[in-house]
C-alpha cells in the first residue's frame, strides 16, 4: 500500500467496508428521528453490501487482498486481509444486514418506542461494523475489539425487547459473551507471548517451526472454548434460546443470520489458517470432542425444539442444532466436510433469516408468537406463511431446497471418512426436524383460526419483499449451487492447503 500515487478509492475498499457503517452509526445517532435514521441506515447498509460484493468479485479475480491500515506494513501494523473465506463471510453478513434493514422500518415502528428508534438503528449499524470487522481483520487482537463492538451493541439490541425478560436475556448473554471474549483474549495473549506476533499469518509462520507444547495447547484450548461460547456450541448454548425469544423481531433475525456465523468463521480462521489442521486435528483430540458435541447438538437441541410452545424458541433451538451440522463439517476436517460447513453457513443464514422475518411479521399483526395463537393463521396471511413453509422445508433438508445441498455434502463428507454411523445421526436429526417444523406447519395451515389469527393479514410490502425474496433464494440456491458450493469448495481447498 505504500507510495500509492494519488488517491484511488478502489484500493481502500477493505477499510471502507468497516469505516462506512462505523461513521454511518455515529451519524445515525445524531439524526434522532426514527424514520430519518432508518433511511440513512438503509443507505449505509446497502452501500456496505455493495462494497462487500466488489471485494468478493475482486478477490475471486485477483486473489487475496492485503491492506495495511494507516499505511503501516503488516505484520507491524494492523492488516486487513481479505481472502476468499473472509470475502464470503463479508458477503453473507453485509447482505443479511441490508435485507433485514429493508424490513426493519415497520417492525421497529411497532416494537420500539419512538424516542429510541434512532438509537436502535445506530446500534444495528455498530453491530454490523463489529461483525464485518471480525471477518476482515488479519489481526488477532483487533478481532477481539471488533468482537466486543458487535457484542456490546447486540446486548443493547436484545435488551430493547418489549417483554421484561428481554433485559434478563440480555444480561445473561452479556455475562456469557464476556466470559467467551475473555477466554479468547487469554488465548491470544498466550499465543502472543509464545510467538511475539498478533497477525494471523505471521503467527502461523512462527508456529510452523514450534512443537505443540503446553503453551500452544493451552492457547488453542482457550481460543476454542471462548469462540464456542460465542457460536453457541452445544453445552455452551444456554444464552441463545432466551436471547432469540425475547429480542425484538429485527434483532432476532439479524442475530440468527450473522452473529453465530461470524464466530464460526473465527474458529475456522484459528483452526485452519493459524494453527493448521495437522496440529489441531492430529495431535489433539479435537475431532472426537467436536464430533461428540456436534452430534449432541444435532439430536439433543432438535429434540428440545419439538417441545417448545413459542415459535421463536422452536427456531432458536433449531439454530443450536444447525450449528451442530456446521461444527460437524469442521470436525471432519476434510475437503467435503469444510465445503458442507461453509455451504451450510450460507444456507442456514438464508433460511433462518427468512423464518425469523416471517415470525416477525406474525408478531406485527397479532402481537404474539405462541404456537396456539398461530393456529390457522396460514390462510389469513398466505404469502408470508407460504414463504415460512418454503424456508421450513429447507430447514428439514427437502431436496430442491438449499438445506438439502448442505446436508448432501455433509453426508458425503461423513461417508468419505468412512464413519457410516454418523449418516444415521444426520438422518435422525433431519427426522426430528420434520417433527418440529411439521408441528408448526400443521398448526399454521390445518387448524381452525383462533381469535387472534382471525384478524391477521399479510404485512406491508416493505416487510413482505424481504421474506418472499429470501424464501425464493432458498429454492434458487437449492438448484443453482455455483455461488455456494463452488466457492465453498475453493475455500476448503485453500484452508486445507494449510499454513504455508
Amino acid at each position: 500500500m505504500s507510495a500509492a500515487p494519488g488517491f484511488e478509492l478502489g484500493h481502500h475498499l477493505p477499510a471502507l467496508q468497516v469505516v462506512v457503517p462505523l461513521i454511518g452509526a455515529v451519524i445515525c445517532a445524531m439524526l434522532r428521528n426514527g424514520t430519518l435514521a432508518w433511511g440513512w441506515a438503509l443507505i449505509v447498509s446497502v452501500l456496505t453490501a455493495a462494497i462487500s460484493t466488489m471485494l468478493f468479485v475482486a478477490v475471486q479475480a485477483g486473489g487475496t487482498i492485503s491492506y495495511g491500515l494507516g499505511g503501516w506494513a503488516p505484520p507491524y501494523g494492523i492488516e486487513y486481509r481479505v481472502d476468499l473465506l473472509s470475502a464470503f463471510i463479508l458477503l453473507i453478513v453485509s447482505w443479511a444486514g441490508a435485507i433485514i434493514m429493508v424490513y426493519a422500518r415497520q417492525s421497529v415502528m411497532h416494537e420500539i418506542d419512538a424516542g429510541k428508534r434512532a438509537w436502535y438503528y445506530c446500534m444495528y449499524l455498530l453491530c454490523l461494523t463489529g461483525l464485518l470487522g471480525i471477518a476482515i481483520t488479519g489481526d488477532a487482537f483487533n478481532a477481539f475489539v471488533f468482537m466486543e463492538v458487535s457484542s456490546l451493541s447486540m446486548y443493547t439490541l436484545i435488551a430493547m425487547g418489549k417483554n421484561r425478560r428481554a433485559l434478563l436475556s440480555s444480561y445473561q448473554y452479556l455475562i456469557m459473551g464476556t466470559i467467551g471474549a475473555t477466554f479468547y483474549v487469554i488465548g491470544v495473549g498466550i499465543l502472543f507471548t509464545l510467538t511475539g506476533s498478533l497477525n494471523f499469518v505471521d503467527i502461523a509462520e512462527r508456529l510452523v517451526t514450534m512443537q505443540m507444547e503446553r503453551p500452544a495447547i493451552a492457547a488453542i484450548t482457550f481460543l476454542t472454548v471462548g469462540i464456542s461460547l460465542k457460536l453457541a456450541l452445544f453445552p455452551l448454548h444456554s444464552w441463545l434460546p432466551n436471547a432469540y425469544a425475547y429480542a425484538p423481531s429485527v434483532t432476532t433475525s439479524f442475530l440468527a443470520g450473522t452473529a453465530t456465523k461470524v464466530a464460526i468463521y473465527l474458529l475456522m480462521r484459528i483452526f485452519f489458517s493459524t494453527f493448521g489442521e495437522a496440529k489441531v486435528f492430529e495431535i489433539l483430540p479435537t475431532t472426537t470432542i467436536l464430533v461428540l458435541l456436534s452430534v449432541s447438538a444435532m439430536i439433543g437441541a432438535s429434540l428440545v425444539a419439538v417441545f417448545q410452545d413459542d415459535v421463536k424458541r422452536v427456531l432458536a433451538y433449531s439454530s443450536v442444532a444447525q450449528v451442530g451440522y456446521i461444527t460437524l463439517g469442521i470436525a471432519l476436517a476434510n475437503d467435503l466436510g469444510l465445503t458442507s460447513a461453509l455451504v451450510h453457513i450460507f444456507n442456514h443464514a438464508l433460511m433462518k433469516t427468512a423464518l425469523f422475518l416471517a415470525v416477525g411479521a406474525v408478531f406485527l399483526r397479532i402481537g404474539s408468537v405462541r404456537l396456539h395463537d398461530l393456529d390457522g393463521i396460514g390462510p389469513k396471511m398466505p404469502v408470508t406463511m407460504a414463504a415460512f413453509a418454503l424456508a421450513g422445508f429447507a430447514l428439514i433438508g427437502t431436496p430442491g431446497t438449499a438445506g438439502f445441498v448442505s446436508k448432501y455434502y455433509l453426508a458425503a463428507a461423513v461417508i468419505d471418512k468412512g464413519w457410516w454411523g454418523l449418516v444415521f445421526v444426520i438422518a435422525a436429526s433431519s427426522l426430528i426436524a420434520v417433527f418440529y417444523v411439521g408441528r408448526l406447519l400443521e398448526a399454521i395451515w390445518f387448524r381452525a383460526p383462533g381469535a387472534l389469527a382471525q384478524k391477521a393479514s399479510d404485512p406491508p410490502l416493505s416487510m413482505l419483499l424481504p421474506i418472499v425474496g429470501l424464501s425464493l433464494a432458498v429454492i434458487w440456491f437449492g438448484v443453482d449451487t455455483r455461488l455456494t458450493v463452488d466457492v465453498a469448495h475453493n475455500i476448503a481447498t485453500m484452508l486445507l492447503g494449510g499454513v504455508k
Partner: protein
Amino acid sequence: MIAGMEGLLTHYTYIVTIFLMVSGLFVVIARGNMVKKLVGLGCFQTSVYLLYIGPAKILGGTAPILAPEYSVYSNPLPHVLILTAIVVGVATLALGLALTVRINEAYGTIEEDEIFARDMVEHANSEESAS
C-alpha cells in the same frame, strides 16, 4: 523441591494472575446477585490485563523512548493492547450495570433466583388467563 519453590517464587506474577482469574470466574458462576456477578466478571477481565503486562515488563528496562543512556526497554505493545482492553472492560461493566438498573426497575430485585420465581408466577398467571 527447592527448585520447584524457586520456580513458583520467580513466577509469582503468574500465580497472582491465575488466582485472580479463577476467583473472578468462580464469583460469576457462584453468585446470584447481579452486581456481585459483575464484580466477579471485572476481576476475571482484570486478571487478563496482568497476563499481558506481566511478561512485557523487563526487569531493569525503562520506558521505550530511545535515548543513548539506555539499552533495555519494556515491550510497549502489550501495554497499548491492554489500554484498549481496559476500555472494553469499562464499557462492558457500564452496560452490565445499566442492565441491572433496568432489571431492578422491571422486577424489583436483582437476585437471580427471585427473578426466576417472579417470572414463573407471571407465566402461570398468563397460562390461566389464556385458558
